[in-house]
């Protein structure tokens, strides 16, 4: 029987003939931690024999959750990462003002490539599957283990084959596809499994939209979300990728534990209502007045997302009772947005434009919600208290829905108002 992408990549890195269900020890290409997950990892690493040196070239350190630091505690936490980088001469450390949101930065800085095995102490590490890597979230203790010995135990996952065919309507993007799938299979629907994506809809998506899809594999309980790499990926990586790579593809006779098919015409601009990413509904059926609109995050904080929103907001002002936060995911994206005049559009529309940070996405700071407040956001989670008070609400959506809703003051389907 043939093998899936996951079986092949993990098998390559473990030096074994890997089959779904096995537990193997695999060599890891890169391990990444952020300012929140780094602290426990460094503490664990420092408990090892003093002579232990971390594998510098495999380690990427990215402060993004509470940066610029929100209080003394988070400043001390970030300092631990800075000190660790200095002590062990770890080059891949991206200081505030030179970096951004960890997953977008990993992709931009060329660490991600087809066929690689990358782990990160952050659940949205699955994002890199959009470039054909096997990437998955892990904990801080095991990140420390990888820093020390460069390998990790992994259970080889089963894979689900998801095929989407047809043409997406206006204002429908990768975010809607993944929300639609999660709404269908639930927050456990892909538990422990790799979600693989096929079909002409997927092939026609921008790399940015593919990243949104891979990013939210974890919200269905998925271990990874992989899209077979094609020219869009290879072109993106030219002059950007570090080292060389070999794309890996599933065999035609690979075994999939489940196969799902969707028609793009059935996917409208979609919203995930509180308090689960699977609680989806068409945006046109959600009648909710909003207090805040949030455009950013590793899910949808790229230049393509900013362009979509800017196109809608150009020459207009958001509703007087709405705060809209625009948070480009990285310095590169912020600068690109400046160059293209997008920041000007957002400013004139009465948005608050921030430097790169995870910010309010996880309820850190930079846009926390009060009791009873509601936010429509391009982020990835809407659990109770996710963005602030336990009685606040987060509605997940694509950038066009967020922008259009900010104009109207309530959640809307962009096709109905634009």
């Amino acid at each position, binding site marked *: 029987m043939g093998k899936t992408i996951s079986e092949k990549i993990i098998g390559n890195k473990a030096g074994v003939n890997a089959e779904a269900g096995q537990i193997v020890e695999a060599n890891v290409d890169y391990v990444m931690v952020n300012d*929140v997950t780094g602290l426990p990892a460094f503490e*664990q690493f420092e408990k090892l024999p003093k002579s232990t040196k971390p594998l510098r070239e495999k380690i990427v350190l990215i402060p993004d959750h509470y940066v610029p630091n929100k209080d003394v505690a988070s400043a001390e936490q970030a300092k631990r990462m800075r000190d660790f980088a200095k002590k062990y001469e770890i080059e891949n450390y991206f200081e505030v003002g030179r970096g951004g949101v960890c997953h977008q930065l990993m992709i931009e800085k060329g660490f991600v490539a087809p066929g690689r095995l990358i782990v990160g102490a952050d659940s949205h590490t699955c994002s890199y599957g959009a470039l054909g890597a096997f990437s998955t979230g892990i904990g801080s203790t095991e990140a420390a283990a990888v820093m020390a010995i460069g390998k990790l135990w992994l259970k080889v996952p089963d894979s689900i084959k998801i095929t989407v065919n047809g043409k997406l309507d206006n204002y429908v993007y990768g975010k809607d596809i993944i929300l639609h799938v999660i709404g269908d299979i639930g927050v456990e629907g892909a538990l422990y499994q790799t979600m693989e994506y096929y079909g002409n809809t997927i092939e026609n998506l921008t790399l940015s939209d593919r990243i949104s899809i891979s990013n939210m594999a974890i919200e269905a*309980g998925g271990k990874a979300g992989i899209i077979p790499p094609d020219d869009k990926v290879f072109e993106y990586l030219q002059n950007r990728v570090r080292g060389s790579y070999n794309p890996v593809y599933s065999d035609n006779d690979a075994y999939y534990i489940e196969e799902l098919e969707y028609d793009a015409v059935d996917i409208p601009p979609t919203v995930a209502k509180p308090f689960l990413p699977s609680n989806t509904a068409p945006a046109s059926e959600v009648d909710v007045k909003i207090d805040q609109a949030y455009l950013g995050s590793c899910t949808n904080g790229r230049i393509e997302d900013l362009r979509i929103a800017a196109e809608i907001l150009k020459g207009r002002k958001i509703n007087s009772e709405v705060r809209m936060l625009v948070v480009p995911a990285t310095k590169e994206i912020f600068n690109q947005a400046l160059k293209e005049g997008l920041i000007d559009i957002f400013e004139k529309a009465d948005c608050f434009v921030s430097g790169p940070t995870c910010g309010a996405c996880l309820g850190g700071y930079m846009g926390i919600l009060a009791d009873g407040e509601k936010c429509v956001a391009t982020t990835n989670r809407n659990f109770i*208290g996710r963005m602030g008070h336990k009685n606040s609400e987060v509605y997940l959506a694509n950038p066009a829905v967020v922008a259009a809703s900010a104009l109207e003051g309530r959640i809307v389907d962009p096709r109905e108002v634009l």
Partner: protein
Amino acid sequence: MEEILEGRAIKFGDNVDTDQIIPAEFLVTGDPKELAKNAFIKVRPEFKNIVRDGDIIVAGRNFGCGSSREHAPRALMGAGISCVIAKSFARIFFRNSINLGLTLIECDVRANEGDELIVDLKGGTIKNKRSSEVFEFKPLPAFLIKIVEKGGLMEYVKEVLNEKNSHNAR
């Protein structure tokens, strides 16, 4: 690793996510006792007052879903929770717990809040003292039992480094 655990059941439903277990604003320390003070603070603020050392969490499906924050099992360990029994676990929470030495058992157990449970880890059974019902569960794969028995992943890493060093010394 203790072979028999006895404790009171504290019950939770399905999809208990990591934002519930330990909200983001408290992720500024790795100290389990500090984290425990804010465990479930938004959804069940009385938790820190009712929880006792040795208590056992009994939950529904997909326990620990959401973030990779290792602070979640740490907060539970800091609160004195001896093990978590759930119908199913989210995978990163599962990994983190194994790697830290928090016992997890996948089992569909019938218990009310406060029921005394007796867990036989080697035998693979859970007994509810009040109802006298006994439930069976599949033990962890051997590789993972090894990690928990050694006291967590870092102990395993120390062994690997030792082997490497003694090999190089030869």
